[in-house]
């Protein structure tokens, strides 16, 4: 099957990196490695030879048993990149050893006591201590033999990294990565499922099938090209609600019945967020925009007008795959942000002793670009001579930026004459300069200054945004944040550095190419490879993702109402963070386990119960069609993918394990779930599916996306 190498090479040429699923057309690994254990002898043994299996299966009487662990491997000629794995036998201790290294093979051949037994299977060698995307690391431990009081010398091999590490406590030496194994179709399906949990609002059974067939590289290409979903544009409303604009509960509901709710809160946009997140085709764009909305935060708690807030969120969607510098300017000049952080109608110092407002100046530096301390490219903090972090900007620099952000006003409304001074509030569009209010005195920027040169408001803005954008903190600060939102809350320094490097230069000399950054995040070995087995990997599904995850697993059709209501009770109302500091800090460390995991910042004993109660409500409750929503269609689930296999509880659990747990369902949790499912009559297939989904949504193992 060498035919695939040309195909793979062409995909490498046209995309930045190969993904696991990109090799979907590669050969199905023909070899299966089966692990055996002999308890009396305390020996593990792995083999892909069916004759060995048959022999050992016959020797159960002397202790040989299958452990249940299997790995995939290539057989000869299946893949051009695979190398032979050599098997050696040491008769003195009755143990085997495997190596993919020809150098090691040649060395062992010279050592008396090792018997070369030929080629066991074919695998890929590690490169710089890592396995390439699309392959799985096989880690080796050594029990140190009699010297450590463990009996005869013996190796055990692991794909599961945390399991591998746990063997240190048993006195085994952790010998690292021995080889990289190909993924079987089942393993690839799980990688697709993981990708859909990282880059969409959750996998559905149909989408797992589709993307497995499509290949993940093609899926990314499709997603980058997908048309953006649209928040319905809404008309301007004045800041103060007219007395005529109320909520009229008279039935039947009309498009204008709930004037106050629909125009003086973000309700319509929030419903559309859920409806489109659950049913839209531009999943990656929406998911990235949702992450961006938690970086460039504005909140309806301060600005409760849907026409402007929806306009802002659409702007984030439209620029999600563009350039970071462009996004900085769009954010800065959006009037909803102008209102939220007081840049709109900000003015130079007055003779009566009023200073330019510092709010936007401080937060664009602290939250939207640089963070508070100087960073290395890997996201770690630089240290000064005193060993302490180095603050990224000074109060004088804040004052300088505050002066820059003077002389901007709300967009002139259509049909209204522009004011020579400041316009009244209008939260949609782009802010306009009013030079008479712009501060033209000298301004400190980051390690730079703007002289008293009478620069226009826009000229100064351009210089200042370029200054902040060019600062060395931006690539690691933003890259780490996006990794945290999409993949894992505590990325390795190397992961941050690899993505930051792409932020600095997309390969074509462009800084801040968000499409390249997102691709780098999702295709990185830490997103796709064996790191997923580490015991701190991943991140909690925040409330919005918890509810969309279930909705998409059940292929929901919805007007968004039910999910909007549900997530509010879980401690997260979309687009309504308490402050510009978002719902939680990217630096939040879970005290009980000392792991950086931002979403745990809103996970506490109250929301812990609410999440389980959401499972109960969604799976067992009756979801009524709202009578307070014009055009309401309610929410309908499609249980078929689960109920159709539910007569066989193991088949049902296989499907639930794939969709809800991305294959991470432990044997013990599976057993507990099976007992509950088997209590429901076989004939009640939907009842069985409900029991399975309730427990899956409630299970701690499904709370952590990894």
């Amino acid at each position, binding site marked *: 099957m060498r035919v695939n190498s040309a195909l793979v090479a062409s995909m490498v040429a046209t995309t930045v990196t190969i993904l696991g699923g990109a090799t979907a057309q590669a050969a199905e690994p023909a070899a299966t490695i089966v692990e055996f254990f002999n308890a009396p002898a305390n020996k593990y043994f792995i083999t892909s030879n069916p004759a060995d299996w048959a022999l050992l299966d016959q020797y159960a009487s002397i202790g040989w048993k299958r452990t249940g662990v299997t790995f995939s491997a290539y057989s000869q000629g299946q893949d051009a990149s695979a190398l032979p794995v050599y098997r050696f036998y040491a008769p003195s201790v009755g143990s085997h050893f495997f190596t993919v290294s020809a150098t090691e093979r040649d060395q062992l051949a010279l050592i008396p006591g090792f018997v070369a037994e030929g080629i066991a299977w074919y695998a890929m060698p590690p490169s710089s201590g890592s396995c390439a995307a699309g392959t799985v690391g096989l880690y080796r431990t050594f029990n140190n033999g009699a010297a450590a009081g463990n009996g005869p010398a013996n190796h055990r091999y692991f794909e599961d990294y*945390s*399991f591998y590490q746990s063997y240190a406590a048993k006195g085994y030496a952790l010998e690292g990565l021995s080889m990289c194994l190909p993924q079987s179709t089942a393993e690839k399906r799980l990688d697709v499922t993981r990708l859909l949990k990282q880059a969409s609002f959750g996998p559905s059974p149909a989408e797992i099938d589709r993307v497995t067939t499509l290949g993940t590289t093609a899926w990314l290409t499709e997603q980058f090209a997908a048309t953006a979903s649209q928040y319905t544009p809404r008309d301007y409303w004045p800041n103060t609600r007219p007395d005529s604009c109320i909520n009229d509960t008279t039935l039947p509901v009309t498009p204008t019945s709930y004037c106050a709710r629909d125009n003086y809160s973000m309700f319509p946009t929030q419903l559309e967020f859920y409806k489109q997140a659950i049913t839209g085709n531009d999943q990656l764009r929406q998911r990235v925009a949702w992450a961006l909305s938690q970086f460039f935060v504005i909140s309806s*708690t301060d600005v409760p007008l849907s026409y402007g807030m929806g306009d802002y969120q659409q702007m984030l969607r439209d620029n999600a795959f563009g350039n970071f510098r462009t996004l900085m300017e769009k954010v800065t000049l959006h009037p909803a942000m102008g209102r939220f952080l*007081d840049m709109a109608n*900000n*003015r130079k110092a007055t003779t*009566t*002793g*009023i*200073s330019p*407002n*510092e*709010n936007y100046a*401080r937060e664009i530096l*602290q939250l939207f670009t640089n963070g*508070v301390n100087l960073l290395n490219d890997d996201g770690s903090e630089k240290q000064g001579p005193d060993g*302490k*972090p180095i*603050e990224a900007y000074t*109060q004088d620099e*804040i004052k300088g930026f505050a002066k820059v952000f003077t002389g901007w006003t709300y967009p002139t409304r259509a049909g209204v004459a522009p004011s020579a001074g400041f316009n009244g509030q209008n939260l949609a569009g782009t802010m306009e300069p009013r030079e008479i209010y712009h501060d033209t005195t000298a301004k400190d920027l980051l390690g730079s200054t703007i002289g008293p040169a009478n620069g226009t408001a826009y000229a100064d803005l351009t210089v200042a945004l370029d200054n902040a954008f060019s600062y060395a903190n931006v690539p690691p600060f933003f890259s780490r944040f996006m990794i945290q939102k999409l993949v894992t809350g505590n990325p390795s320094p190397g992961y941050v550095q690899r993505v930051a490097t792409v932020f600095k230069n997309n390969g074509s000399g462009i800084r801040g190419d968000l499409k390249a950054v997102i691709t780098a995040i999702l295709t990185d070995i830490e997103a796709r490879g064996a790191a997923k087995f580490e*015991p*701190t*990997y991943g*991140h*909690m599904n925040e409330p919005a993702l918890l509810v969309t995850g279930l909705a998409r697993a059940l292929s929901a059709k919805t007007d968004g109402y039910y999910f909007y209501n549900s997530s509010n009770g879980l*401690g997260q109302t979309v687009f309504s963070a*308490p*402050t510009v500091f978002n719902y939680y800090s990217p630096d939040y*460390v879970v*005290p*009980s*386990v000392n*792991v950086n995991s931002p979403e745990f910042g*809103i*996970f*506490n*004993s*109250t*929301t*812990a119960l609410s*999440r*389980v*109660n959401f499972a*109960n*409500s969604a799976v*067992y409750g009756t979801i009524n069609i709202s009578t307070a929503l014009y055009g309401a269609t309610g929410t309908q689930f499609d249980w078929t993918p689960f109920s159709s296999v539910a007569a066989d509880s193991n088949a049902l659990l296989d499907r639930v394990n794939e969709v809800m747990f991305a294959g991470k369902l*432990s044997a*013990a*949790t599976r057993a*507990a*779930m099976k007992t*509950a499912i088997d*209590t429901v009559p076989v004939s009640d297939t939907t009842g069985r599916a409900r029991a399975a989904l309730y*427990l899956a949504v*409630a*299970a*701690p193992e499904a*709370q*952590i996306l990894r």
Partner: protein
Amino acid sequence: MNLSRRNTLKALSAGALASGLSGFTLPFASAQSAPSDYKALVCIFLFGGNDGNNMIIPADAAGYAAYNAVRGPDSNINIAQADLLTFKPGNSSSTYGFHPAMSAVHPLFDQGKLAIIANAGPLLAPTTKAQYLAGLNVPYQLFSHSDQQAQWQSTISNQPARSGWGGRLADSVASMNGSNPFPVLTSIAGSTLYTTGNSQSPLSLPSSGGSFTLSGLTGTDAISKARAAALNALLLQGKDHLLVKAAAEQTEQAIALSAKVNPIITSTTSSVTNLFTTTGNSLAAQLLQVAKLIEARATIGLSRQIFFVSLGGFDTHNNQINTQQTLLGNVSSAMKSFYDATAALGVANNVTTFTLSDFGRTFKPSAGGGSDHAWGNHHMVMGGAVKGGAMYGTFPVQQLNGVDDVTGEGRWVPSVSVDQYAATLATWFGVPASGLAAVAPNIGAFANKNLGFV
């Protein structure tokens, strides 16, 4: 995972609540005998940085003139002298005024139930303006919301902290509660650094009106019972992953405590409910929940409790006059209701309530009718044990570029530190002098370890 919570969970998951806790003892349970009294501390965090410069205003002629010179009628954040709710601290020769929205708590000052702590803030040591300008003793990331919240909540100002002083105070007094698995700390405002201890972690409860129980698991048929059993079983699994473990144990703790807590917070017969006006006042709804829990102190059975509540919206960069009018009105009303509740419950002398906030705000106004982030700030302490009717700390000289202003916009260098504020409250709570450093690690930098307000 901390020791006490692990044991809590072990005890609770074994059904110990129902069967009694005999045979189960915490390792340190016998180290200190339980005190016979009950004491509670209630922390009110005003998120965003309350403008103390408009909460407490000099009311005598010279003081108000200095105020008016910077925050005059043209500033858009002026409070008129005639509107001040005046008071004269017993230990001062000057007269001051509360913000006019604070009529509810105003009388408590003269009744000796309320004290003002003037110009407090994060410090590494007693610090002068000259030292600040020379770069000495400067707390990290002054004027940043997140960092200054952390410093007020932790007392630690030389580096980011992993625990708060409420949490560490809970660690220190946990043994006074014996082997009771109910946490020392209860937050009605979610997870915060303040309530994070080295070994103690908080119970987080909803505001008044919410419930704290699992739904849909009370069915007695075989299917429902099997589902409930499976839920209990799977909460114990997958813990080789640390985040799964953290999620599972939080859920376990919540389920285990819900049977005791839910009847208390959903009680319709509480005697304190009608003392609170919770409509449009989320702080009042939170403090009502605290009052209900204190009302049930015999059922809960703790000797020491620490509560955390909060109100947001104080980041008044614009429209400060209207915003602060509403917010301080709510704070004042909620605090007065809460004081009255403790009095009605007969525990006014046993409950001390105090405020924290991100920082003070610039004395100089900024465009938009607001003020920017600053440093030292004024705070309130309330309760029967409080030596009220007095002002502690030193009121700043309200002059731009004056002796207390470090940047020219009226950012005051604090006169007393968060460490001293925390240590004073900890001392009242029963922490001996030798234990104060465990609560406020930097207290040794301050000669005066007790500000004397309680």
